[in-house]
């Protein structure tokens, strides 16, 4: 022990001495070794940090009641570090009224580290919004969604079912765009933990940090933009994963999802702007027998078609006219009849928006829901602002 101390002491002394003999302190190195002028230059010209995000207040009127039913605030953090690294994250703080009182939620919507690889590819990892169709990935933020409500099966909850597809997935992926002739193809492929099957009711749970098997989900989307200079985009997406636990009755349970989407936006001077969006998707799990003798033919389908029209600015006196947009959307959700969460439903949405800025609007919409058994109407008002 003594010998060790004796040997260590001179070593420590040596290190301390070296330290003391370093020619400059850190600040000196930065100030004296560099030419003065360069101190004024931007050391990382491509680096940037920005907090963006959005805010929403929702007023819902249904069954003779009107409530400020939901308010939320979604900050988005963006870090660009030089030419290669980009980190993005969104957190949702949400307050919602429900039959059980007030529900408060804080969710990590996404947290993605991107490695920018040259012109046409980006490698990413973390929690990301799955590129299945386009509504969930691109149009769900309230200041982007043209209507005050979301389509059933794609964000608007009905019978305990909110999304008939993955929303947030945890894993890695690659995306980008390549040019083919004069057209453009964009791609986005990922591997993630994947969905988990609830053996009690045949429902799928997404957003999983703990997968129930070693199999990873694989999914992605290819978007075609065939006409140069046009906004027209046609998309095809797919997703498959084993969803049952490794051992047991559900080890072969597999989900398969296919989606098609379309987007077209065109502004014509003197006429206004038309915005057409749509998505069709089918989802099936190849297992029919669930616990407690429940038998479900577990395939579902959802599609929506939406058209929005923003008025033109006819004269300077009535410029505000061009802030008005009308929207109509039809959504059809088909779910297995025998499932506890099953009820085929259609939703016709008619709405009107007043845009006060490019990313802020008052939106109102009436939803006409119809199932085999009954019909319901709901009115929703939204004030939303991006920043």
């Amino acid at each position, binding site marked *: 022990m003594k010998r060790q101390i004796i040997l260590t002491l001179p070593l420590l002394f040596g290190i301390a001495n070296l330290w003391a003999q370093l020619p400059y302190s850190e600040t000196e190195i930065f100030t004296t070794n560099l030419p003065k002028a360069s101190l004024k230059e931007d050391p990382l010209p491509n680096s940037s940090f920005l907090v963006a995000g959005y805010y929403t207040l929702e007023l819902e009127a249904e069954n003779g009641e009107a409530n400020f039913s939901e308010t939320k605030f979604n900050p988005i953090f963006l870090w660009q570090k030089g030419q290669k690294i980009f980190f993005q994250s969104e957190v949702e703080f949400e307050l919602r009224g429900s039959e059980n009182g007030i529900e408060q939620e804080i969710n990590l919507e996404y947290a993605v580290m991107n490695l920018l*690889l*040259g012109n046409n590819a980006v490698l990413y990892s973390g929690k990301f919004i799955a590129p299945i169709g386009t509504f969930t990935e*691109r149009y769900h933020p309230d200041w982007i969604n043209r209507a005050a409500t979301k389509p059933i099966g794609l964000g608007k909850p009905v019978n305990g079912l909110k999304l008939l597809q993955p929303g947030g997935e945890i894993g890695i992926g690659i995306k980008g*765009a390549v040019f083919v*002739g004069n057209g453009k193809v964009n791609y986005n492929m990922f591997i993630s933990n994947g969905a988990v099957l609830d053996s009690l009711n045949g429902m799928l749970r997404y957003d999983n940090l703990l997968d129930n098997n070693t199999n990873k989900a694989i999914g992605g989307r290819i978007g075609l933009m065939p006409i140069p200079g*046009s906004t027209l985009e046609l998309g095809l997406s797919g997703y498959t994963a084993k969803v049952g636990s490794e051992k047991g009755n559900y080890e072969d349970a597999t989900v398969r999802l296919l989606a098609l989407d379309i987007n077209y936006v065109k502004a014509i001077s003197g006429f206004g702007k038309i915005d057409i969006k749509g998505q069709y998707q089918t989802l099936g799990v190849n297992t029919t027998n669930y616990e407690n003798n429940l038998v479900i033919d577990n395939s579902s389908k959802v599609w929506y078609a939406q058209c929005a029209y923003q008025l033109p600015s006819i004269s300077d006196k009535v410029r505000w006219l061009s802030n008005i947009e009308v929207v109509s959307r039809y959504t059809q959700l088909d779910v297995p009849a025998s499932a506890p969460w099953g009820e085929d439903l259609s939703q016709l949405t008619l709405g009107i928006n007043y845009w006060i800025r490019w*990313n802020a609007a008052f939106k109102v919409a009436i939803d006409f829901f119809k199932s085999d058994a009954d019909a319901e109407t709901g009115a929703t008002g939204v004030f939303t602002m991006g920043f």
Partner: protein
Amino acid sequence: MKKIHIVSIFISLVLAITLLNSCSSTRMATITGAQLWGENCVRCHNAPPSTDFSDREWEAVGTHMRLTGHLSKEERDKIVEFLKSSN
């Protein structure tokens, strides 16, 4: 076994795309940042005015939208330059 397949598909994709990485179109050579802004920035939401963000902020927004809007780096750079020159 299947996992190995998925991983190898993924790796070949990464390789193929890295090879395609220099891929650009003849159209890109002549198109301006303003045109690209008009074609791309209205597809999902109303196009923001250039005055809404500072030069430095456009750097971050530009990359964010390169990722969300699936733009090539070349398209992103041209759009960001256009927005920075007109804000």
